[in-house]
C-alpha cells in the first residue's frame, strides 16, 4: 500500500509541476460547451433539454483527450520497465496510475463541469444529481482511459485508436450517467447501475491493462 501511494504521489507531483493536465482538459471542456449554442442556436428551452447530456459528452471527450499519455511517458523513459521489476504487481500499478489520472484530470473536470451548465441553461435542479453522477462516473472514465492508454502505449498515433476502442465502452456510462443526472431524487436505479459499472471496472480494467502492458514490455 505504501508503495502504491509512492507512485500516486509521484504522479500528483508531476502533474502539478508540469501543469497542463486538468487545466487544458477544463479549457477543452468549456470550448466544447461554448460551441454547442453556436451550432444549435440560442434556443433556451432546447439547450435546457440537452444540457445534462451535452455536459456528459463534453466530459467523456475531455477525459479521452488526456488518456493517451497515462502510460506513454513511463513507457518511453523506461520507468515502466523498472516498475515491472518491482515487487508491486503490474495490476496495482495500473490501478495507481488510473487513480492518479482521476485525481489530476477526471475529478477536477467532474467537479467544475456542472458549474459551466449555466452556459447552456442547465436546470438548477439538475446540478446536484449531475454532480454526484459525474464524480462517480469519472472514476469509470479514468479506469477505462487507463485501459485504452495501456492498449496503445507504444503506438505513435495512439490517440485516435484510444477513442475508437474506448468510446464504445463509455456508452453505458453515458446512458446511465445522463439518466442519473435528470433525477428528481438523488439515489435511484441509474446511479446504482453507475456504481456497479465503477466497481466492475475496478476489478476488470487492471487485469486487462496489465496484460496489455506486459505484451508491450516483451
Amino acid at each position, binding site marked *: 500500500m505504501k508503495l502504491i501511494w509512492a507512485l500516486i504521489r509521484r504522479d500528483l507531483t508531476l502533474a502539478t509541476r508540469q501543469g497542463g493536465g486538468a487545466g487544458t482538459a477544463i479549457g477543452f471542456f468549456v470550448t466544447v460547451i461554448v460551441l454547442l449554442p453556436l451550432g444549435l442556436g440560442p434556443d433556451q428551452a432546447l439547450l435546457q433539454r440537452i444540457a445534462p447530456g451535452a455536459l456528459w459528452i463534453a466530459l467523456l471527450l475531455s477525459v479521452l483527450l488526456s488518456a493517451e499519455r497515462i502510460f506513454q511517458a513511463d513507457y518511453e523513459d523506461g520507468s515502466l520497465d523498472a516498475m515491472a521489476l518491482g515487487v508491486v504487481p503490474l495490476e496495482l500499478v495500473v490501478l495507481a496510475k488510473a487513480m492518479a489520472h482521476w485525481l489530476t484530470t477526471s475529478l477536477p473536470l467532474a467537479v467544475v463541469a456542472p458549474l459551466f451548465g449555466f452556459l447552456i441553461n442547465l436546470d438548477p435542479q439538475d446540478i446536484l444529481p449531475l454532480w454526484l453522477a459525474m464524480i462517480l462516473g469519472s472514476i469509470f472514465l479514468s479506469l477505462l482511459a487507463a*485501459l485504452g492508454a495501456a*492498449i*496503445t502505449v*507504444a*503506438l505513435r498515433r*495512439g490517440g485516435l*485508436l484510444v477513442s*475508437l*476502442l474506448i*468510446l*464504445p*465502452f463509455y*456508452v453505458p456510462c453515458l446512458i446511465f450517467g445522463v439518466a442519473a443526472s435528470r433525477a428528481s431524487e438523488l439515489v435511484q436505479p441509474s446511479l446504482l447501475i453507475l456504481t456497479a459499472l465503477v466497481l466492475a471496472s475496478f476489478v*476488470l480494467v487492471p487485469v*486487462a491493462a496489465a*496484460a*496489455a502492458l506486459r*505484451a*508491450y514490455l*516483451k
Partner: protein
Amino acid sequence: MQKFANPARFLKLAETLLPPIWGVTILAFAAGLYMSLVTAPPDYQQGETVRIMFVHVPAAWMALMVYTSMAAASVMAAIFRHPLADMAAKAAAPIGAMFCLLALITGSLWGKPMWGAWWVWDARLTSVFVLLLLYLGYMAVWQAIEDPHRAALIARIVAIAGFINVPIVKFSVDWWNSLHQGASVFRMGGPTIDARMLWPLLIMALAYTLLFVGLLLIAMRSEIAQRKLRQLRLAGIEGR
C-alpha cells in the same frame, strides 16, 4: 485440435474443404432465397416487408456468432497458445463486421416503412451499432501494431473485453422496452414463429454460416501466405 495447428496441414484441409463448402453454400442460398422470397407467406401485419427478415435476422445472428467465436478463439490463443487461433480471430473480424453492417442496413430498410424512420436510437440498434464499432476497433488494433506477435497479444485483450457487449445485444430487447421486436426463435419455451417462416430463416442461417466458414478459410489462407512472405523477407535482410 493440435493436429491442425500446423499451417501446412491446415492449408491442405482448407484445400479439400473449400469446394464442397462453396457447393453447399450456393445450394443453401438458392433454396433459402427461393423459400423466403416465394413460398413464405406475407406477414398479416407487415405484409411483404417481412421478407427483409430472412436476410436481416440471420445476418444479425452471424454478427453475434462471429464475435463470440472471435472472443473464444482469443481465449484459446491465450490459454493453449494455438498458433492458428489468433489468425482465425483476425480473419473472422472483417467478415463479422460485414454481417453486422448487413444487419444494420437491412434493418434500416425495414425500419423505414415499419417505424417511419431509417434509424431509431433504441437499445437493440444502439448495441448492434456498438458491436460494429468493436469490430472496427479490433481490426484497427491489428493494423496499428507492426509486430504481429505483439499485435496478437493486444488484439486478444480487445476481443475479450468487447465480448461484454454480446449479451447486451442479445438481451437488450428483454431488458429495455425496445422498439425492436423480441426474440421469436432462440427463446425459452421454443420458437413462436410459423414453420413456413421458420424454415427459410434457418436455411438462410445455414447458408450464412457456410459462407462465413468458406470466407474464413480463404482469409486464413491468405494470412498464412502473408506471414510466410514476411518470414522470407526477414530472412532476406538477415546479416546484410
